[in-house]
């Protein structure tokens, strides 16, 4: 009853082609954005902004980037963290070396730089596929981190190789408090996520999916493989690059190349596997799961232990947390191998019939 499309007639192409064709979805997304933009800034505390919401949004953006490449275009990549590093260092250098450049231009520049590097490392994708491609992108991971460490120019000759992000100033306003940074990150992520949603259903997105499902067949129906794959690499790296710039400027404040390790690439990959491949929503759900669950367990476990009077030390809690986290990942993968986004979809179908399932 809650989620029925009966009675929603579409009388024009525009109505049929809109981003969210079902009225409930439209209302839902508007409500969600309204809550994110208007309610959360009023009620959330500093801890929520800087420790939970900002990293969640940034990693969701990175996962979205990887999802475009891996989930939509079917090219497995292990270099997402490296592309984030490119974005972070590029934004820093734009701010440093171009006098008076607006910060948003730096972010876009960071995305474009990452896109350029992404295209470079995407070239092998024409000849190698699947796991072999993953190994090739692994090379990107190591090469980029090595490169940023090796050449001091990238970190402005800082003796330690660590860069410290400049102040975020837009139109003379300094984004200093966590709340302002959250709003900035949220705006960028919302725009880019809607753009991705749009892209996924355009001819570009359809070409990606055709290549993913069977590249020979895609070629036969007239999709040129090289530009399609490279475009996927470029767009994906653009998203990761912007995420990296936000990671440096709005989250940590100072970053070092080693921070963008393979471990981080794996985490982003896990996010899309858990969240759902080839789904915009999945990127967000996956990021939430991977980032927030450990924090939740970390807070909930000692509390539970205290409740039952168990003598848990800090280290024990961490071990148990890793254990529970691993078990939950396996549970979700077994119950729903297509990710959390698929669970949501099933939920929607059920709601469509509720309360009279047949």
């Amino acid at each position, binding site marked *: 009853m809650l989620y029925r499309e009966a009675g929603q007639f579409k009388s024009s192409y525009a109505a049929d082609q809109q981003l969210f064709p079902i009225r409930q979805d439209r209302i839902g997304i508007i409500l969600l954005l309204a809550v994110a933009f208007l309610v959360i800034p009023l009620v959330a*505390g*500093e*801890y929520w902004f*800087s*420790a*939970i919401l900002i*990293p969640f949004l940034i990693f969701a953006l990175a996962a979205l980037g990887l999802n475009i490449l891996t989930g939509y275009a079917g090219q497995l990549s292990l270099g997402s963290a490296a592309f984030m590093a490119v974005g972070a260092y590029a934004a820093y250098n734009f701010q*440093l070396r171009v006098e008076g450049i607006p910060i948003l231009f730096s972010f876009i520049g960071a995305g474009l730089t990452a896109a350029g590097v992404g295209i470079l490392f995407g070239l092998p994708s024409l000849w190698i596929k699947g796991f072999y491609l993953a190994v090739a992108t692994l090379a990107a991971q190591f090469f980029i981190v*090595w490169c940023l*460490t090796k050449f001091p120019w990238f970190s*402005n000759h*800082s*003796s*330690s*190789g*660590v860069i*410290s992000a*400049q*102040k975020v100033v837009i139109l003379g306003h300094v984004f*200093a408090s966590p709340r302002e940074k959250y709003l900035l990150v949220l705006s960028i992520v919302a725009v880019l996520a809607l753009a991705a949603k749009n892209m996924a259903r355009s001819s570009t997105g359809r070409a990606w999916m055709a290549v993913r499902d069977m590249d020979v067949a895609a070629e036969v129906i007239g999709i040129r493989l090289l530009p399609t794959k490279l475009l996927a690499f470029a767009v994906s790296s653009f998203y990761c690059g912007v995420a990296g710039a936000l990671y440096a400027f709005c*989250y*940590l*404040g*100072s*970053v*070092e190349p*080693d*921070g963008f390790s393979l471990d981080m690439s794996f985490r982003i990959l896990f996010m899309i596997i858990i969240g759902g491949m080839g789904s915009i929503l999945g990127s967000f759900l996956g990021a939430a799961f991977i980032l927030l669950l450990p*924090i939740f367990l*970390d*807070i909930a476990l000692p509390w539970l232990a*205290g*409740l039952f009077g168990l003598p848990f*030390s*800090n*280290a024990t*809690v*961490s*071990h148990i947390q*890793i254990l529970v986290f691993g078990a939950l990942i396996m549970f979700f993968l077994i119950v729903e191998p297509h990710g959390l986004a698929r669970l949501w979809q099933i939920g929607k179908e059920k709601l469509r019939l509720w309360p009279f399932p047949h």
Partner: protein
Amino acid sequence: MFAYRKPLLMTAAAFAMLSQVAAAEEQFFPIVSYRVGPYGANGQSFYGGFVDYLNYVNLKDGGINGVKLAWEECETEYNNAKGVECYERLKAKAKVSTGPLHVMSTGISYALIDKTAEDKLPLAMMGYGRTDAVDGSVFPYAFPLVTTYQMQASAIIKFIKDKEKGNLDGKKIVFLYHDSAYGKEPIVALQEEAKLNKFALTLIPVAHPGNEQSAQWLQIRQENPDYVVFWGWGVMNQTAIKAAQKVGFARDKMIGSWWAGSEEDTVPAGDAAKGYMAATWNVAGSDVPLIADIKKVVYGAGKGNLQDQAKLGTILYNRGVSAAVLSVEALRGAQEKYGKGKPVNGEQVRWAMENLNITDARLKEIGATDLLPPIKTSCADHEGSGMVKIQQWDGAKWVPVSGWIEGNKGLIHPLFKASAQQYAKEKGITPKDCAKES
């Protein structure tokens, strides 16, 4: 119906206990630590020592002037993002009253430098972290206490120079380092020293994690240097010591940094480690009076933090104690100025950390002689000492082979100043005037 009541009451009691922890008359310590993960073993020793000393102060003196110490730990697994999350989680309590924050991770301390300054919470980086924070005019809330990588490198060169009868002209020194922020920081200092003392310096990086170093040691064999100064980390240390034995490089010509000189590094290397030297600012051993007393008071009361008591008296355990001693002394100083018997907040602790004066006599009073060099900080010098000892592994334990050696301050501190100025310019910070500080 009564069956429900008991758990309910217990829950209420648990909540009451939780809220008591944050009572006003306690001095809170946010402890952002790691005891699991890749460097968990190091963290267990360091934070074991840290917490044991806080417990010791509570048990022995009933706190600082009657203010009990309380703390809450949060696990970072040496991960920067988790470190930030932990910091944010503990921040609310720390804003009421706080001890200095010790994160024992360069990455996390870098991520926290701006945040702590904004939140007015003092960040201590003992022997790691951003070294140019020595310049307190740009970094009011960051304290690279005791000594920094650059000063340590300079002190090691001084030690070598003394061994070579005051002349390094024409000598060859190889700097073998972990290719990361940690390993690269001393390079500037070494290059300056090389210019000054006219020795040839060769830089050889080792990629993380450094468990394969045959190429590097082959190069060292070809170069045949007089000394190898070694900046290793984790598994890299034992590998280097073993590799040195393999190519026949004398271990007593090899001097490591303080993160390459603990039992965790030498014991796994076995026989190869005999004669290997490393810098340190605290001696090992449980015969230091304070350590012995901690063993008696804290472990005697069954409140010890270490699960493995064999770690008691190791280099890193004693280093944790030394960090806690410094923190507690800073709190004493803050109470001295802002009111005895009251918890102090971040701004007050900051003042105390900038005006520390821990003399030899005071160290003796605490029983911490040789756990720390004497320290006197100021606005222009957040380091306060810059002294290290060189110790040698005799096959079973670390033995100090030198007195306190001070690095060349006149050479190194201007480097910090220049680097801090650049940082201030990039960030648009106006440095405060140290001459006006009381």
